[in-house]
């Protein structure tokens, strides 16, 4: 029988420490939606998504009520659209983005990911068309998210694609100028992208995935922070152990919700992504966990070590709690979505360079960072190249979600609202990277890619 303490602990986690299931994401294969006539392909996309995901939102809401745990988002990821669009002759893939957007609205999900492509070694015609279609797709739809994988440890870094993404990010920002470049918040450039990630904006349904699948992303920085605060004077062994135990409990909840949702929707259960995903709400911050470990402000010396400990302990605890762990799994360090990160930037404790160092030991990369609107496409590309290099060499996922906010200067603020939060515009290096970026071609894969 459960004890009263255990029951109260769970209730406290949800009510006071903001434990929630961040997302139930349904992956849907669209590989059978190809058709030479673009409007027919778009209809097939719409029909398949609305058919398979019809019950996603009500099932998610019922599970949330029965277990008494909030499920913040219900989302959909689909096959990279470049694969579906490729057999048409059309140049602008916006029509497919529109079909995705309409389907997402119909089934009531707030984001749908998969306006994506993987070009780490080179581009097909369809890949190039998709990338060129991204700015319009993100400006003229509301819920569609795009992602492009430009590097892997096995292939190296496709610098042509990296350069192109610099331009695409600029154009996306320009097309959503009236909203401070909001389109860029829905666009992620990856290295070593996982194919089963449930978190937006980088989710898509990989080619190795089944027809349909349920993946779950758990969260809970508030719960971890509370646990860390309770062992303030303890040594690092105790600190790591405390985080592990907490991550275990959080992940068990994700496993339960994921399995229940999958069985009720009649699709296989994929993975639990054991990530600490912050939100702008007070007390739901990864930066605050690092500060509770004994740093005056996130970003000061010691931050990378603290984040490394946190990330590793979350993985160790989470891995024991779930039979299938996947996706990004680790700590997210977005700026705009984390009130503690925003404060650290505004007080001058945290800059782009330190964030880059932190991405070496966390689960993703430079995330939700606003930079001045006059940042050049080449500088953006160079920032992406740096992140990709970290991912490729360390055999981990890295990503860049950066917003060159039109008309804004360092120190200004941009507001995106809701889960996307608000961000201070951060300083970038004034020195040019243009000559380097414009070389073109591919940075070769590192020697440790020769692992066969």
């Amino acid at each position, binding site marked *: 029988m*459960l004890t*009263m303490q*255990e029951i109260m602990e769970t*209730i406290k986690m949800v009510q006071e420490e903001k434990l929630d299931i961040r997302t139930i994401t349904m992956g849907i294969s669209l590989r059978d939606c190809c058709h030479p006539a673009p409007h027919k392909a778009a209809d097939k996309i719409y029909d398949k998504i609305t058919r398979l995901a019809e019950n996603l939102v009500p099932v998610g809401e019922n599970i949330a009520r029965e*277990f*008494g745990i909030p499920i913040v988002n219900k989302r959909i990821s689909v096959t990279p659209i470049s694969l579906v669009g490729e057999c048409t002759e059309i140049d602008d893939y916006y029509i497919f983005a529109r079909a995705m957007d309409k389907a997402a609205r119909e089934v009531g999900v707030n984001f749908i990911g998969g306006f994506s492509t993987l070009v780490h070694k080179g581009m097909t015609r369809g890949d190039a068309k998709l990338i060129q279609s991204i700015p319009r797709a993100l400006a003229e739809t509301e819920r569609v998210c795009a992602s492009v994988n430009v590097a892997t440890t096995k292939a190296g870094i496709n610098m042509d694609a990296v350069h192109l993404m610099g331009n695409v990010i600029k154009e996306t920002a320009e097309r959503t100028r009236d909203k401070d470049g909001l389109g860029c918040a829905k666009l992620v450039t990856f290295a070593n992208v996982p194919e089963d990630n449930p978190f937006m904006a980088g989710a898509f349904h990989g080619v190795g995935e089944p027809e349909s699948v349920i993946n779950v992303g758990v969260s809970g920085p508030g719960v971890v922070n509370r646990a860390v605060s309770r062992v303030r004077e303890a040594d690092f062994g105790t600190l790591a152990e405390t985080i592990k135990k907490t991550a275990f409990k959080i992940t068990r909840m994700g496993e339960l919700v994921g399995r229940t949702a999958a069985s009720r929707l009649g699709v296989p259960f994929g993975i639990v992504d054991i990530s600490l995903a912050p939100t702008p709400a007070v007390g739901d911050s990864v930066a605050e966990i690092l500060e509770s470990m004994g740093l005056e402000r996130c970003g000061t010396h010691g931050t990378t070590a603290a984040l490394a400990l946190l990330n590793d302990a979350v993985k160790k605890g989470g891995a024991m709690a779930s039979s299938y762990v996947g996706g990004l799994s680790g700590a997210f360090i977005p700026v705009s979505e984390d009130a503690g990160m925003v404060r650290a930037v505004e007080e001058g404790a945290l800059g782009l360079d330190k964030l880059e160092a932190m991405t070496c030991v966390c689960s993703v990369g430079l995330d939700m960072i606003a930079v001045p609107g006059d940042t050049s496409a080449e500088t953006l590309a160079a920032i992406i190249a740096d992140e990709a290099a970290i991912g490729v060499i360390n055999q981990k996922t890295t990503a860049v979600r950066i917003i060159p906010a039109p008309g804004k200067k360092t120190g200004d603020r941009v507001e995106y609202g809701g889960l996307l939060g608000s961000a201070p515009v951060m300083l970038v290096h004034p020195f040019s990277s243009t000559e380097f970026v414009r070389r073109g071609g591919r940075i070769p894969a590192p020697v440790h890619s020769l692992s066969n």
Partner: protein
Amino acid sequence: MSDTTKKEMKNRVIVTVLGPDKVGIIAGVAQILAENNINILDISQTILQEFLAMVLIADMDASTVDLLELKQKLNELGEKIGVRIDAQHEDAFSYMHRI
């Protein structure tokens, strides 16, 4: 695990009451459970300062309502008497605390 134990586990709910202590809270909750043919298996409570924390484990095997309906009835009672009453599936707790 035998089929019968599995079944029992599947239908158990945890009812929690949190709020200022008053006359008739447990009576009210018990009445709703009885009306809907839900069997109480265990009750424990403590008073922290003036606040009541009560946890009740019940078996919904023969219940005439489903968990969502029960939850709604308990929420309504809670609102009426000024405490927070909730019902959650037992799995939400056992999954987290039992391997």
